[in-house]
């Protein structure tokens, strides 16, 4: 089942046994339940792509936190998504070394190839494009992550090879 289908079925659903088991494993590493808040958010997000309101409430209940407390945590961090994202998130480094090495141009090429700007998801729900602070690979700039993979030394050819044949309309405003 693809993640996009999971998101559809997510409304009203609660945490799966698997998710709860993984969260409970994290609880063993912390003295207070709320200590596993970030881990729990990441566990659920890893399965579903993002953290819906329902999931957030369910996690909060499981960790004996209020939804407000957990919301405060979830919205603080860059990598917790409180809105749906595509199959893969592209984390595009726009920090200083990549910028010196021409990342602005590359970003435009990616945007053109995928038809999305920062914060948007392609119409086929394959990619969400997000900026990310320095990825710690400045010696191989410009770089980005596509899903879990680091792609280095970005140039036009690489963009083409990755996204070249993706022909989609601009995605919905995310």
């Amino acid at each position: 089942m693809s993640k996009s289908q999971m998101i559809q079925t997510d409304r009203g659903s609660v945490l799966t046994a698997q998710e709860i088991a993984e969260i409970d494993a994290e609880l063993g590493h912390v003295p207070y339940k709320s200590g596993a808040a970030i881990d729990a958010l990441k566990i659920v997000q890893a399965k579903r792509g993002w953290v819906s309101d329902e999931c957030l409430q369910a996690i909060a209940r499981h960790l004996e936190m209020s939804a407000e407390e957990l919301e405060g945590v979830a919205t603080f961090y860059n990598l917790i998504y409180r809105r749906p994202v595509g199959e893969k998130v592209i984390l595009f480094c726009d920090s200083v070394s990549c910028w010196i090495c021409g990342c602005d141009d590359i970003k435009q090429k990616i945007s053109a190839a995928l038809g999305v700007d920062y914060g948007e998801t392609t119409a086929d729900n394959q990619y969400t494009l997000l900026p990310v602070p320095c990825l710690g690979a400045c010696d191989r700039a410009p770089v980005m992550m596509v899903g879990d993979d680091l792609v280095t030394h970005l140039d036009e050819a690489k963009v083409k090879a990755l996204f070249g044949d993706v022909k989609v309309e601009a995605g919905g405003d995310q």
Partner: protein
Amino acid sequence: MEKVLTRNIGLEQEPTNLKAYEANGGYQGLRKAMAQMSPKDCQDVISASNLRGRGGAGFPTGMKWSFVPAAEKSTPGHRYLVCNADEMEPGTFKDRLLMECDPHQLIEGMILAAYTIGADISYIFIRGEYIVAIQRLRDALAECYGAGLLGENILGSGYSLHMHVHPSAGRYICGEETALINALEGKRANPRAKPPFPQVSGLWGRPTIVNNVETLCNIPHIIDRGADWFKTLGLGEDAGTKLFGVSGKVNNPGCWELPMGTPIREIIEQHAGGMQDGYQLKGFLPGGGSTDFLTAEHLDLAMDYNVIGAAGSRMGTGTMIILDDRTCPVGMVLNLIRFFAHESCGFCTPCRDGLPWSRQVLQDIEEGRGQPEDLETLAYQVRYIGAIGNTHCALAPGAMEPLQSALKYFYNDFKQHISAGRCPYH
């Protein structure tokens, strides 16, 4: 020069291979400590070694550890060691290398550090984007638990330690050690007021030491081979070796282990292969995005904490970012301030609202809307945001360092933008 921190890097074996690590001298420091050294002995060696923190501030590690209250003077409970592997400072790419290529070295360092301060639980707080490093550390931890190097009664010494990997959900401020502690507690990562320092009241209110990856990677070697040996490694005042890096328009960007005190020129010209054809060096940030610019006139300085400090900048993380003559300094500072403004935790006013204000002024200048009085405003903002103590933590003063030095060294560039009504580099 002898490779210390990177001696296993480039080996044929899988980086997590415990056997290979041990074959190359790994866990000798640990075995030695467990067999014949008390925590106090370890503390003495580290203090004597003059090791300074590699996380950016260069604080003497031995001294930091010595602030942890003696067990008998503190209320009973856990003590924690935390490895700061957040590495989000723009232009910094050294800890990634150490963790991806030699995870056991870090783990050994952490066990020794934890032993010294009497910690029974330790965490590696690592950037969530470091997928490979996270996996390798987890694999290596599993190997260690299997081999009795972690867990209860390590190597039969009676000392027990647990170690967990915590991948961050991503924010630069998590690198600040007290914000990191809040993040580990599952909270919003606002920094904490100091004092009390984490050594006294840190993670979950308990004594806690936070050290950088590279700092901790030095520990096994110092324990194994002694403080004197370590001190001989540096060329100048500072002890040991350091990972130095160069990014930007150089021929061979990268990261190398070199003696402390290696001249900047050597790093840029020899190791990084000098500037690319058609590019001249205009300036550089010596140690990551929150250090002051230096220029060509500083190339012969040694990469030593005090030397760089005297020149008006900071050694920071030791990874340099080169500004070339075809890149706009205003644009570069704007890029950095945009980063810092976005990564502000939002806790204190000068940073939360002051940095976006600077960003706005810089953007106006860069995009040709600058007014002469904007330069005064920028100088005002540097005074307002730039001093340690004006803000709740060091993020905002760090953010002002490139701006303040750019105003000093590249003032004309700013003026040209304003008088021409556009960016002359485009």
